[in-house]
């Protein structure tokens, strides 16, 4: 049987890493709504290796029928977990360690195999359960997301969750609509800007440098800050 994804495995073999990577690729394709087996084979071959697709089928983690692929057995859980670890690693590297550009991807690719699911959960809590990776891809929810009780004080949180008087530095804006994003940017709300929450209701009032900006709750909760 396979050990991939099992938290106790100290080090994974090269083939196991490849399989994890392939599962991640397939998860992304599925998330995009892409189900064609031929395309999946091609993409896995291009991004991971020629053998990986067949190996996943052999191990019963993947099935193909009518020219479409789908996960089987523990395949789906493993694929979700590896994607989560990869994207959370990206978030951590980008937001906390301020690593950008090509080394962000390279490091995240290493980390997805090293991190255990428990550590991924801790990162998720620390970062305030981020919804997307720095590239905008959705991070699959883990068990921790949505649960109220938290042992760890989150390092990152939505602007709307700061206490009045508290300060933060904007880490990223989690807005799906680019025109809204441009509006907030034009108010000086760009990554790196220091903000102070003045008031939380009826609208969120924020001091952005020398000016005062009122935002409705939904907008303020899409701005993720790192507490200062």
């Amino acid at each position: 049987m396979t050990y991939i994804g099992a938290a106790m495995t100290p080090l994974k073999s090269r083939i196991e890493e490849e399989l994890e990577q392939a599962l991640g690729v397939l998860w992304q394709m599925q998330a995009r709504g892409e189900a064609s087996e031929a395309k999946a084979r091609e993409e896995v071959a291009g991004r991971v290796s020629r053998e990986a697709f067949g190996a996943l089928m052999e191990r019963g983690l993947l099935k193909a029928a009518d020219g479409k692929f789908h996960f089987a057995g523990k395949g789906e859980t493993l694929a979700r977990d590896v994607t989560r670890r990869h994207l959370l690693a990206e978030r951590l590297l980008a937001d906390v360690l301020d690593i950008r550009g090509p080394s962000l991807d390279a490091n995240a690719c290493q980390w997805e195999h090293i991190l255990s699911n428990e550590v991924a959960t801790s990162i998720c809590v620390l970062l305030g359960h981020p919804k997307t990776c720095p590239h905008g891809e959705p991070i699959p929810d883990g068990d921790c997301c949505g649960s109220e009780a938290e042992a760890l004080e989150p390092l990152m949180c939505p602007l709307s969750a700061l206490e009045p008087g508290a300060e933060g530095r904007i880490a990223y804006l989690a807005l799906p609509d680019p025109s809204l994003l441009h509006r907030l940017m034009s108010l000086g709300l760009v990554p790196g800007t220091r903000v102070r929450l003045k008031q939380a209701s009826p609208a969120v009032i924020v001091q952005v440098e020398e000016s005062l900006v009122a935002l409705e709750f939904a907008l303020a909760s899409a701005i993720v800050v790192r507490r200062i």
Partner: protein
Amino acid sequence: MLLSESKTVATLRLALVGQPNVGKSVLFQALTGRYVTVSNYPGTTVEIARGVGDLGGRAWQVVDTPGIRSLLPRSEDEVATRNHLLEEPPDVLVQIADAKDLRRALRLTLELARLGRPMVLVLNLADEARARGLGVSVEKLTAALGFPVVETVAVTGEGVAELRRAIGAALPYAGPPADPPEVARALHSALRRLPADCPSPGVVAEMLLAGEPTMGRWLRRRFNGGAPIDCDDLRRPFHAGPEILLASSRRMLADEIAARASWRTGGAAPAWLDRLGMLLLQPAAGIAAAVVALLALYEFVGVFAATTAVNFIENTVFGAWLLPPVKAAFDAVLPPGWFRDMWVGDMGLITMGLTYALAIILPVVTAFFLFFSVLEDSGYLPRLSVLLDRLFRPLGLNGKAVFPMVLGLGCGTMATLTTRVLDTRRERLLVTLLIALAVPCSAQLGVVMGLLSGISAAGAGVWLAAILASFFSIGWAAGRLVPGGRVPFWIEIPPLRWPRADNILMKTQARVWWYLREAVPYFLAGTLAMFILDRTGGLRALETSLSPVVTGWLGLPREATFALVSGFLKRDYGAAGFYALARRGLLSPEQIVVSLVTLTLFLPCLAQFLLMIKERGARTAFAVAGVVTLVALGAGGATRAALAAIGGLP
């Protein structure tokens, strides 16, 4: 207009650009002597204004543009400003900025630098910056940017002479580039896809790379179609968008320049005005302030202007001093007959049209504009919009709708024009409808308050309840029927300022002139139409055909039909007609309330209707008119029935 006169003389063009609410229009006025409306809230300049100024012995064409926060536009007027800069590149670009927020100013400077035009940076509101303990070294800034920087206090004229001199010394930006290497490469690729004669290619390329949707349309229009220029492939490698990367790196560079050239002396505890400004954002204090403002409005406009001033002007100035000699003069020259009556008869242009316009309406409108200007300049309105945002949510609008609506309490026509400050077409349509329906203008309000003060407080309560019910129910229904979603609310909140008497007076004067130019011709045209209808028997026919509705459905006397019909021509004119009827004792208190409800909700005046056609299109304007007429008659009839059911007003 000024443009055509100036084109032959002024060969050099200067554009004033800057963030909203930093004093562009005041400086425009200082440079050209022309007045454009100036207020203490963002979005007052909704059109590009042009004037001619004498700078260093040469005539310059000076262009005032609507405020922009970034060259990446977020609303129609920001698109207008950006396109103007692309289409008519100025010889000198003067950026006006708020000296209190140097870093934000510099971020826009770094964006504008890409236009490649000679620039001057004006740090306006320098007095407010000094009061907060902020210091700036103009020399260090000039050295960092490579072009002149001037500190001004536009409202007092401080620094304007230096600005005139600096314009001659304008130079393009010569500071360090802000583009991160990967963005610079993508921009380079995007540049090569542009037509060879594209103006300001750097900015156009940046917009395309940022995925700004109006840029493609502009390019196709400008270069007569052609294949759309697609930069999606260049955009894709930047997962979060190249514009975020650019904005972040511009922010860092701007912070660095600001850190080198400015300092802060002492933490300066917030002044009491700043503390009051924060307090007004809290519901309890904010609502208390709104109640105080409403009471003050009632006392000043409703009681002082609409009663005391109108009585004096109508009865004494017109009734006793002006009209008798004018009538006598006409009687001396003209024989009795329709031509004499057209001027000084019961429905004469002078005795009725001009008297209504100048003696009843003008004092009320002037008082309102004066009051509104104080409110505007103080910076209170954005605070009100924060408090009222939730009230507008069920209507599918956000707090920004407060601006046109409060202005609508002054003049609905002006308010319809101001809906341009709203972000989407949907919001503009919804607000246009609500202003046409349930926001009474000051001329109407004056008459309404005058009439209501003659009956019980309960009557006023019934009127207010009927208007508010119509406002929210129709607003709620329209918010659901008009497609599109609500735009999330965000607004910049300017500091609370002491209104300046000279600015208030100038602004009130400009608005009153605008009103006289727009309203008086319609008053006179309306009077003439009524006169002709009356003489040809058309009025009688109209009254007869409408009287089932007026007497049957609304339960009003036959004579009220005249006021209602004239309300078609001008809503406040109709109100004034009812006023006259009530004074003659022809209406009971219940009938007064019913007619006021009908009239308040009734069709906007002719001027507002024409502007609706111009701004929203004929189809929309007629649809709005239809809805408004039905709702007005429906609510009037319902009020009558309700009053009858409870056995009249207590």
